[in-house]
């Protein structure tokens, strides 16, 4: 065979019974939103503008030069600006190079937006949805900085690179960080290697540093942090949510700063999504939105420690 496969990997990696269960799980998600009068929408997988996020790599379709979406966020925000109201989407998203036990370059994302919600209210709703799959248990909310301090690390909002490096060296249970990370890379390293493994079983990490705001607005009382949250279940990152930034000018600045980092580090520099910025200029309603990895949620519901058991054909079998 051309791809070098012997052909013995034709069956799905998941049991057929598990795939039937997956269909039920999808029904549960749709029921959850139907009960809350959040409507299902569809937006394109391929779009002309890309994502400038420094740590998200898009796949590109060769014939048209269009980008496969890394999430439906920009298109859904255009729907919100057009007045569609509360909406959700279950869709495939694509991220180049993200492959491992908990990553597949093509995966199923659930994304939804709630008008008038702030991060706290959306966290309640995410917890309710996750509870339907994983059972109810104590749900902890912890600020990003507090999670560092509780893991025995310095305050990430004030510590300099040298202090963070010394803190990393003081944790011999983790392998040493790779050289040349810089301050923000070092925070990512400490967070993934030391903070996340120490989080409570079901934990929303909130108030991310402003330079990790992505598309979240900054906190009204403390602009050093953003109204962004992430949900971790048993150390697995399940969801990422924002009290959405609505200021088009501010978002343009963030996109341009991403582009200049990409230029400096020799990465591809996708164009800014002008339609998104135009929609935000026209007026994105006050809202909170979140993206949740459905394959991961289903894998945790199945008690698995990888995605292969809940996906029909992961990357290597696709």
């Amino acid at each position: 065979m051309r791809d070098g496969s012997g052909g013995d990997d034709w069956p799905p990696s998941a049991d057929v019974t598990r795939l039937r269960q997956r269909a039920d799980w999808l029904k549960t998600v749709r029921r959850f939103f139907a009960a809350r009068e959040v409507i299902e929408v569809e937006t394109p997988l391929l779009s002309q503008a890309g994502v400038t996020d420094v740590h998200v790599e898009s796949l590109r379709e060769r014939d048209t030069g269009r980008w496969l979406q890394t999430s439906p966020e920009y298109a859904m925000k255009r729907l919100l600006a057009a007045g569609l109201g509360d909406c959700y989407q279950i869709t495939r998203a694509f991220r180049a190079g993200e492959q491992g036990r908990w990553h597949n370059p093509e995966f199923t994302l659930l994304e939804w937006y709630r008008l008038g919600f702030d991060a706290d209210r959306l966290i309640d709703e995410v917890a309710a949805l996750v509870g339907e799959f994983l059972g109810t248990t104590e749900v902890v909310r912890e600020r990003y900085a507090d999670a560092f301090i509780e893991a025995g690390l310095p305050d990430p909002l004030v510590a300099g690179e040298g202090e963070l490096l010394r803190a990393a060296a003081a944790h011999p249970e983790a392998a040493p960080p790779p050289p040349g990370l810089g301050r923000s890379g070092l925070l990512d390293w400490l967070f993934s290697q030391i903070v996340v493994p120490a989080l409570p079983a079901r934990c929303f990490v909130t108030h991310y540093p402003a330079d990790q705001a992505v598309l979240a607005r900054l906190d009204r009382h403390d602009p050093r942090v953003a109204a962004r949250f992430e949900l971790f279940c048993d150390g697995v990152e399940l969801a990422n949510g924002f009290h959405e930034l609505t200021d088009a000018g501010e978002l343009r600045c963030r996109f341009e700063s991403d582009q200049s980092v990409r230029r400096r580090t020799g990465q591809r520099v996708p164009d800014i999504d002008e339609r998104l910025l135009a929609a935000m200029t026209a007026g994105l309603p006050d809202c909170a939105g979140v993206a949740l990895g459905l394959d991961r949620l289903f894998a945790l519901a199945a008690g698995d420690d990888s995605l292969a058991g809940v996906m029909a054909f992961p990357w290597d079998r696709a």
Partner: protein
Amino acid sequence: MASYSTNQFKSGLKLMLDGEPYTIVENEFVKPGKGQAFNRVKVRNLKTGKVIDRTFKSGESVEAADVMETEMQYLYNDGEFYHFMAPETFEQHSAPPEAVGDSGKWLKEQDICSVTLYNGEPLSVEPPPHVTLQVTQTDPGLKGDTSSGGSKPATLETGAVVQVPLFIQEGEVLKVDTRTGEYISRAKD
């Protein structure tokens, strides 16, 4: 110089780290949220066998180790070195005892082994997964007892000692799994 990007990482890949050859035992892609992605790997030092953890920035390139796994025929032991021959080229290599290690007790002349070469020198030796070896010493068992679960030690021609069923006699030829060190069956012929 050959190198690998982290997205080529998988177990068995050979890397140079701090001037030493390593093999990847386990590779985990780690990316919490929207930050920097890492590959967290367990690597085994091919010289010392020691396993350590390392993290790499995803997308980083790492020098490849000039390590080759080859199939070679085991020829003989000269009292210190183990001698092997590449079947196609008839090229001979001698492996020091520290490269052969525990595998030595399974090596039978003529058997095809997996020999790992580092810069052209044998670094480690894996015996075939299954070997056929003669029993040179074992206590007499119970005649006709082919069912009971009991076992006894038997010394094989290469010096390895394995647990065998009670009915096995001296001089018999056995099939043994070298990975577990367990008796499989009597050899068919």
